[in-house]
């Protein structure tokens, strides 16, 4: 933005001010910033591996019939793709990376409430991730159940479901501990003057997310253990010939996994709520409504799980109730979108990389949300459930929505922690490629689903071929954009020009510390005297 004041790197920061820099000083560090960066590297590795797998899936689907792999491989790969993306990238990603890096500084704390528990969370994450990786190469080979592990298939298949599921169970524990840590931190460690009404909206969203992590994840843990018990001990809990019920598994699974969708998207919404005011130089429109709607989404979102099961055979009464509640949850999301757009009105907007990603978040998330309405209505759900429509829809929400918000946050906040920044031009080019490639990849899937092509299909009828080909070509453009973005970002963070303490002109506390911040975050305890988007009183131009 304003490079005339030639920022220089501070001599000391959390990278070196403790004097400990070796590998063990990182993997055993209790500093929330170091842990945040450990999470960053680990979730990005999972993400990139899963992207490569996604590209292979798309190549296979380029034309009908066998292209590069057989059905057994395809089924294993879409399962691994889903598991990595959901359990190892997007769920731990926001709390683990930006929750850790930014949230404590934004509330004026020097660390989270339980720093050692925080470290344990990362270790549990790594243990779980390695267990999942191990499951791919041992026993009956990679699981082929889909990321949903539906019984009875997951009980019957000879692949290594048990170990994979135990890995997910361990990652779940990491998530629960992070949730507990963050709720406590936000309640107890706010700086003087940081009233609830002055909390940055990103903190609000992390707070709502943390509650879901605490309350919903245990249900997933138990459900997955039951699958292991069913496989190893033959308990028959889900086996109808022995008095069990396979539909019960689906209820238990979605009681966690629908709220988990909000673990994925709420922090993304929080990030957009930070970026819009800063790049429009205007206070956020409807602060209270946005904060409140995060809580409303977290609360009401816990009551809609069975909308994944309208065709399963649940009662018509259940369909009525869950369809109704699904539409109720749509309202707070809509309110957020209107408030974000209004923030732009009469602002002074600068279109740098974080803002471009945030603006495209609005469009992609809107498509995701609106296609969600088509699925929430009972009659239309029946036709598109379990089709490519759903695959298109959730990529719009979690990749176009949450994913783009993640990239936005990477461009916005990572320079703060590295003290150096990337070049703007390649960032713009990569954004353009990704936005175009994204729509080219996933919009055809929405149409394919309307035409009736089911999901998790290794092969398809010739009538679906043209749209699948377009989608595959789109995925290459998307991948090219992603590659440019990652290379530009990390080259810049490591070698780029220095990044001052507040080049974006933000009014939240992280912009009052040097870039990179010292281990203690603040030289003296901050006292908060104004709201998070009060640029005038923060004294930024």
């Amino acid at each position, binding site marked *: 933005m304003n490079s005339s004041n030639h920022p220089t790197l501070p001599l000391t920061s959390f990278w070196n001010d403790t004097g400990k820099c070796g590998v063990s000083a990182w993997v055993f560090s209790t500093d929330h910033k170091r842990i945040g960066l450990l999470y960053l590297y680990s979730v990005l590795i999972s993400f990139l591996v899963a992207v490569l797998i996604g590209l292979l899936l798309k190549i296979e689907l380029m034309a009908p019939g066998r292209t590069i792999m057989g059905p057994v491989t395809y089924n294993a790969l879409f399962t691994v793709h889903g598991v990595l993306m959901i359990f190892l990238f997007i769920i731990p990603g926001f709390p683990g990376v930006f929750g850790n890096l930014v949230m404590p500084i934004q509330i004026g704390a020097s660390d989270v409430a339980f720093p050692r528990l925080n470290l344990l969370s990362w270790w549990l994450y790594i243990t779980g991730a390695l267990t999942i990786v191990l499951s791919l190469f041992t026993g009956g080979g990679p699981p082929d159940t889909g990321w949903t592990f539906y019984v009875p298939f997951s009980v019957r298949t000879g692949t290594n479901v048990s170990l994979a599921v135990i890995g997910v169970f361990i990652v779940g524990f990491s998530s629960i501990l992070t949730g507990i840590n963050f709720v406590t931190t936000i309640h107890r460690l706010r700086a003087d003057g940081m009233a609830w009404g002055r909390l940055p909206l990103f903190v609000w969203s992390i707070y709502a997310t943390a509650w879901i992590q605490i309350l919903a994840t245990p249900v997933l843990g138990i459900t997955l253990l039951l699958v292991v018990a069913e496989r190893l001990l033959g308990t028959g809990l889900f086996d109808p010939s022995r008095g069990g019920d396979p539909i019960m598994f689906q209820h238990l699974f979605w009681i966690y996994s629908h709220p988990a969708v909000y673990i994925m998207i709420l922090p993304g919404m929080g990030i957009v709520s930070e970026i819009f005011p800063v790049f429009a130089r205007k206070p956020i429109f409807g602060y209270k409504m946005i904060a409140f709607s995060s809580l409303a989404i977290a609360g009401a979102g816990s009551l809609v799980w069975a909308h994944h099961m309208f065709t399963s055979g649940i009662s018509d009464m259940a369909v009525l109730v869950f369809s109704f509640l699904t539409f109720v949850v749509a309202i707070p999301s809509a309110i957020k979108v209107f408030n974000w757009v209004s923030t732009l009105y009469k602002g002074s907007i600068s279109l740098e990389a974080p803002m471009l990603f945030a603006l495209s978040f609005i469009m992609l998330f809107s498509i995701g949300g609106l296609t969600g309405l088509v699925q929430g209505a*009972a009659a239309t759900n029946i036709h598109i459930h379990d089709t490519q429509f759903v695959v298109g829809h959730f990529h719009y929400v979690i990749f176009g929505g949450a994913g783009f918000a993640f990239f936005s946050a990477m461009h916005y906040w990572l320079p703060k922690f590295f003290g150096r920044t990337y070049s703007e031009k390649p960032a713009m080019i990569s954004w353009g490629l990704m936005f175009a490639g994204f729509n080219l990849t996933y919009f055809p899937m929405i149409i394919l689903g309307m035409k009736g092509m089911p999901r998790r299909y290794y092969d398809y009828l010739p009538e679906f071929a043209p749209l699948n080909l377009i989608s595959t070509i789109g995925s290459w453009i998307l991948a090219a954009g992603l590659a440019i973005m990652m290379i530009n970002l990390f080259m810049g963070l490591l070698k780029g020009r220095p990044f001052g303490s507040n080049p974006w002109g933000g009014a939240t506390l992280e912009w009052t510390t040097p870039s990179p911040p010292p281990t203690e975050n603040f030289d003296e305890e901050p006292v908060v005297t104004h709201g998070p988007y009060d640029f005038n009183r923060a004294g930024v131009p």
Partner: protein
Amino acid sequence: MDPIIQTTNQAVDPVFKFIIGICILLFIVISTVMLVFTFRYHRSRSPKPTSVADGNIWLEILWTFIPTLLVMAMFYYGWAGYLALRNVPGNALEVTATARMWSWSFSYPNAKTSRKMYVPAGRPILVNLVSQDVIHGFYIPAFRVKRDVVPGMKNHVWFIAPQKGSYDLFCSVYCGTEHSKMLATVEAVSEQEFNDWLNQVESHHEKISGRKLLETLGCLGCHSLDGTAGVGPTFKGLWGSKQIVLTNGKERSVIVDEEYVRRSILDPKADIVKGYQPIMPVNSDLRENEIEELVEFIQEIGGHSK
């Protein structure tokens, strides 16, 4: 029930039009406003913000109220259409669809069974859904109907084929290796043709070759014909060979003959080949002539040469 609704398409398609119409409208409004603001208030045109407004209670009420109305309308139409999908017309013809990994079979009130689903066009069809193994999904996109086929659960679905023709039937719930090959055809014919077909005694030229059967029944998803190992043992060289099997948990060795192959197909759990998982689906819906064909074919390609 609404007497105007004659087919399942008519119950669903107007709901699609209504919801997608509103969605497109909302999307256009949101993105246009956003893009116009971004252009108009770009820093080059608007160097300083000209407002510090941080909220407006009337706007908040307005844009809470309008979406609430819209989504409630969507909910209502969606629900009404769904009810039509659930209310089976009284005069429906009953067919039972049996799903297993990875094939469909259809049986009719007179006990006739078929691999294709023949239905009279214009008449409501009530399909009872039975699964022999895992969860499958009965999905005919052309009629907008779908219902999961859950083991141990009585599920049903109904539709009308408005016109004569062939329609695709997919398995919509992921069920393993050959999930995407678990297709069948719905053959809608005239009432007259249907009755002729239904009452026709099994004729011999309806016979399908053993090779084709292995394919349509999904056997080849687990068994290979060329000696490569899969989820199940290969059929190549099987006939006449010596197999170590577990019977009731006890190991014994058998020579593969007609009796053994028959038992393996009809009651896979009886003898489990050593080193394999007991995951082969039961095949209780096979007809006698189909079993003969299968056994014959396995014998043919299995010519065990010593």
